[in-house]
């Protein structure tokens, strides 16, 4: 108990130094947690993907459409349970800064494949029944103050014109990592419009979304689907939803690598700060450690005192950093609007913050504790003070 008291008093002995060190760790842990959450947000689409869903797109590129007629052939493949389809619409709501993902989809089958979009049954029926209807995510509805029955107008970029939709349903995510910023509407509604304005583009889809019975057969089914359309005018590329989403992440990999490097630099900075503090603390107290050695205390006692002190300093900073991450994330999300659909501080991030602080605490105690353990007692005792 007395040693614990000594450890705690030592940790806060040089108050200004300790407070500045704790502050630096707090900021570094806050920044690390933040960057880590940004990376998580980047991968949210990948994380939310299901192994029981495949995506089939044109083998040339994602922007090249596929004939709708492929649907029936895909459905006949053994192991395929549901086939839905859709198209990235890319509509703009009032101005470009109001970004949110919006898709034209086949409503019933699409919602069947995405049970994580939770919609009250009445609203779901109303959405499926009305061809001009749309379903909007909770966050995007809150962002623009939309409610059921409101009419919204999207300006088409890929599909020219102004498109009116009536909000018939608002979905919420089944888990905190489900994207609640998307808007879906009837593919048929868009297709009817195309038949009138651009008939050649009608009856084509951007992707097929396929529900399969057994995720273990995903690769086999994907090969079989692509085999159906080999040497056709529109060859397909089928992959798991996860691989499909990873393709998007890969496009921005350079940014992610930069964020990861900055995260590592932050850890190195914390390590240097705490190491410097501990080195100064121990150097100033060498005669005290020598006294303890003279009195018969072992190297284990000295190590416990020094490691304990550095861990207390780092963990204090880490706790403040972790606590501050939550309100900071809230402020950040509010400022970003719907640009980052999922910005959720995960348990893994908090655990990583704690592990990093603990590792830094231990690492920064190594050199000072070796110095204290190896200090020649007789020479240290002659130091004044």
């Amino acid at each position: 108990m007395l040693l614990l008291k000594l450890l705690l008093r030592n940790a806060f002995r040089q108050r200004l130094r300790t407070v500045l060190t704790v502050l630096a760790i707090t900021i570094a842990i806050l920044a690390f947690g933040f960057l880590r959450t940004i990376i998580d947000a980047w991968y949210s689409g990948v994380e939310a993907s299901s192994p029981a869903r495949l995506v089939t797109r044109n083998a040339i590129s994602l922007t090249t459409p596929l004939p709708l007629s492929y649907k029936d052939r895909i459905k006949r493949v053994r192991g395929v349970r549901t086939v839905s389809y859709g198209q990235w619409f890319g509509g703009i709501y009032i101005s470009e800064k109001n970004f949110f993902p919006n898709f034209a989809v086949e409503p019933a089958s699409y919602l069947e494949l995405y049970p994580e979009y939770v919609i009250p049954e009445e609203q779901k029926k109303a959405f499926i029944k009305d061809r001009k209807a749309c379903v909007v995510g909770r966050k995007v509805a809150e962002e623009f103050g939309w409610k059921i029955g409101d009419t919204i107008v999207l300006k088409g970029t890929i599909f020219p014109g102004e498109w009116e939709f009536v909000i018939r349903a608002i979905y919420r995510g089944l888990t905190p990592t489900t994207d609640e910023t998307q808007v879906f509407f009837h593919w048929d509604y868009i297709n009817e419009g195309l038949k009138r304005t651009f008939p050649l583009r009608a009856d084509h889809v951007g992707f097929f979304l396929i529900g399969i019975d057994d995720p273990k057969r995903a690769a086999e089914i994907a090969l079989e689907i692509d085999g159906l359309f080999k040497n056709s005018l529109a060859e397909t590329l089928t992959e798991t939803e996860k691989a499909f989403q990873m393709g998007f992440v890969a496009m921005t990999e350079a940014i992610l690598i930069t964020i990861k490097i900055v995260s590592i630099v932050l850890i190195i900075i914390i390590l240097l700060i705490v190491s410097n503090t501990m080195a100064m603390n121990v150097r100033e107290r060498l005669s005290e450690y020598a006294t303890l050695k003279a009195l018969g205390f072992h190297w284990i006692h000295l190590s416990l005192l020094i490691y304990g002190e550095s861990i207390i300093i780092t963990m204090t900073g880490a706790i403040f950093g972790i606590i501050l991450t939550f309100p900071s994330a809230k402020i950040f999300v509010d400022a970003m609007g719907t640009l980052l659909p999922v910005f959720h501080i995960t348990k893994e991030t908090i655990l990583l913050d704690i592990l990093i602080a603990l590792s830094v605490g231990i690492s920064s105690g190594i050199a000072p504790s070796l110095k204290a353990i190896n200090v020649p007692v007789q020479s240290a005792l002659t130091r004044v003070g």
Partner: protein
Amino acid sequence: MQKGSIVEIRNLSKSYRRGSEIISVLKGINLTIGEGEFLAIMGPSGSGKSTLLNLIAGLDKPDEGSIIVAGIDITRLSENELARWRADHVGFIFQFYNLIPVLTAFENVELPLLLKGLSGPERYEHVMTALKIVNLTHRMNHYPKELSGGEQQRVAIARAVVTDPTIIVADEPTGDLDKTSAEDVLELMTRLNEEYGKTIIMVTHDPRAARRAKVIRHLDKGILDATAETPS
């Protein structure tokens, strides 16, 4: 080991390396210290008296020779065994008191008892007894910076005796004190020797301090004078 002796030193030599030069600090020291003795070792700076004290206290190891304290040849002990031995057998009084600044007088005195496996109430009893001996119970909750130099040295003496050690080693115990405080500390050490029968080995270059001892030995250039002086 001679009857009645607590420390026996035979053919003790110690040298240090300074760069490429080897400096011989102690040369073939032979010394016997009796139980309950108050020995002062005097000598000029660099004579090797502190080195001799460190060797007796198990803080350093000799190049040659043996040091037998209460029947144990401490030159044969490992570092860990020496640490344990010091905790059990040696009480230290340093020139600069060497108290831990963030611990109170009570806590400083309690420190060596942590290695004894005593319960909280037992430790309290021991600490209070030691503080009573040095007449500082009223200052037990004060931190070293709130105490005078003399009081700090008395806390250090309480810390030295709290474990009831076999020997007490004191390295210039009055070197950092004014005359009055030095007298108080020396009086206390005399009491420890005379009333409590403690064996004290003190290194000093202060003749006034040395006169408090029962025996004075002179050390010069690493060689101990053959004759022992008995202060009148």
